[in-house]
C-alpha cells in the first residue's frame, strides 16, 4: 500500500487538535460512509464539555484536507426536502493511516483526549478491541514507569533532579490509574 500523501500543515489551526480530529474522523469512517454533521455529532458526544475545542468549521475543513490528501473521498447525495449532502468515505490509504494511528503507543502531553477518542473510535468502527489498545498502552507506560522510578530512586537524598523524576513518575502513575478506569469501562461496555 502506498504511503498516504502528507497533509498540508500550513493552516492556522492548532496542530495537535487538528491531528487528533483528523485521525478520529478517519477512524469513524472506517465502517460506514457518513455525513459531516454525523461525524461532528459523534465527536461532540465523545468529548462532552471538551467539545468546545471543536469550532464549527473544523470538521468540514479537516474533511476537505483529508480528501485533498487522498485519505477520504466524497460524493454529493441529493435530498428532496433539503440541500444536497456530501457523503464521505475512507480510501485504502485512509484505512492504512487509521491502522497506524491505532497501533501508535505515543503518549503526548494531551494524551487523555487523544487516547479517549482512539478507544471510542476503535469501538465505534469495530476496528480494534479497546481492551487490547489499553493493554498495549499499559505495557508501554509500565516500562516507562520502571525506568523513571529506577532513575528517581538512584538519586541521592535532597537531589533536585529527583523532584523532576518524581513528577515523571507520578504522572505515569496517574496515567496508569486512568488506563485501569478505561479498561473497566470498555470491559463492561463489552458485556452490555
Amino acid at each position: 500500500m502506498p504511503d498516504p500523501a502528507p497533509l498540508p500543515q500550513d493552516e492556522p489551526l492548532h496542530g495537535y487538535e487538528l491531528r487528533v480530529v483528523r485521525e478520529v474522523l478517519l477512524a469513524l469512517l472506517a465502517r460506514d460512509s457518513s455525513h459531516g454533521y454525523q461525524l461532528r455529532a459523534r465527536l461532540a458526544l465523545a468529548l462532552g464539555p471538551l467539545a468546545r475545542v471543536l469550532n464549527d468549521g473544523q470538521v468540514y475543513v479537516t474533511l476537505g484536507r483529508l480528501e485533498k490528501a487522498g485519505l477520504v473521498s466524497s460524493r454529493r447525495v441529493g435530498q428532496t426536502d433539503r440541500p444536497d449532502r456530501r457523503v464521505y468515505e475512507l480510501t485504502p490509504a485512509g484505512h492504512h493511516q487509521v491502522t497506524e494511528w491505532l497501533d501508535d503507543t505515543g503518549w503526548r502531553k494531551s494524551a487523555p483526549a487523544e487516547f479517549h477518542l482512539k478507544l471510542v473510535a476503535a469501538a465505534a468502527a469495530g476496528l480494534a478491541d479497546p481492551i487490547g489498545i489499553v493493554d498495549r498502552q499499559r505495557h508501554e507506560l509500565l516500562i516507562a514507569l520502571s525506568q523513571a522510578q529506577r532513575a528517581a530512586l538512584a538519586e541521592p537524598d535532597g537531589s533536585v533532579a529527583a523532584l523532576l523524576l518524581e513528577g515523571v513518575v507520578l504522572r505515569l502513575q496517574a496515567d496508569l490509574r486512568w488506563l485501569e478506569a478505561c479498561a473497566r469501562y470498555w470491559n463492561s461496555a463489552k458485556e452490555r
Partner: protein
Amino acid sequence: MTSDQPVLSASGLSKEYGKGAALVRAVDDVRLHVAQGESVAIVGPSGCGKSTLLYLLGGLERPTSGTLQLAGERLDQMPESRLARLRRHALGFVFQSYHLVEELTALENVELPALLAGSSPRKARERATGLLEDVGLGDRAQHLPSALSGGQRQRVAVARALANAPLAVLADEPTGNLDSAATADVLRLFEQLHARGQTLVVVTHDERIAATADRVISMRDGRFVDETKLTGGTARSLTEMAGLEG
C-alpha cells in the same frame, strides 16, 4: 531443587466461595511459575482476587482445585502441620498493616521467626541484628513498634520476612498504608532484595511497587488477563517523558 525449577508453581489454581447462585470464583484457573530470583507483581482492582491468590500461594488458604508447588513440593494437599512448618521455614510474608507484635521490640520481632523455626537464641539475634542494619534501622532495634513510623514498621516487617532466608517473600499491598516518602523507602528496599536475588511475589494496586518487578501481571475477576515484562524493554527516553523533548 535445580536452578531451572520454578520456586513457586501454580497450575489450574482456583478458589471458590459459596455455593449455587452465590458461588464466587475469587481465583479462577490461574497458572503461574515464579523462577528463582524473579520478582513478580500482580496488580488489579480491589476484589479482583489478588490477595486471595497470594494467600493460596503462601499456603495460608487451601485452593478449591488446582496444584501448587513450592520448590517442587506439592502444597495443595499437604497436611496442615507440615504446611505450617514449611511456611515458617521457606516463606516470608509482608502485609499492608505490618502485623508486628506490639509488645516486642523491633529486634525481637525480627528474631521471632528464627526462634520459632528452632534457631539458637544467639544465632537468631545475630541474624536479626544484621537484617535490621540492612533495612537501615540498626539504631531502632530496641524501639517498640508504637515508637516507629509506618515506613519504619514496614521495614521491620520486611526484615522479619527475611529472618529464615526464605525461598520466596510474599507481600500483600506493602505500601498500602504509607505516604509517598515512606513508599520510596520501601521501594528502595524491594529493589535491593531483588538485586540480591530474593524471589518476590507482590500483590498491589500501587503501580510504583509493581514497577520494581520483572513481570507485572494484571488480574481481573479472578483471572490473569495481561502480562508486561519490565526487563529488557526499551521505552521512550527520560527526557521525552519529562517533556524536555519530543
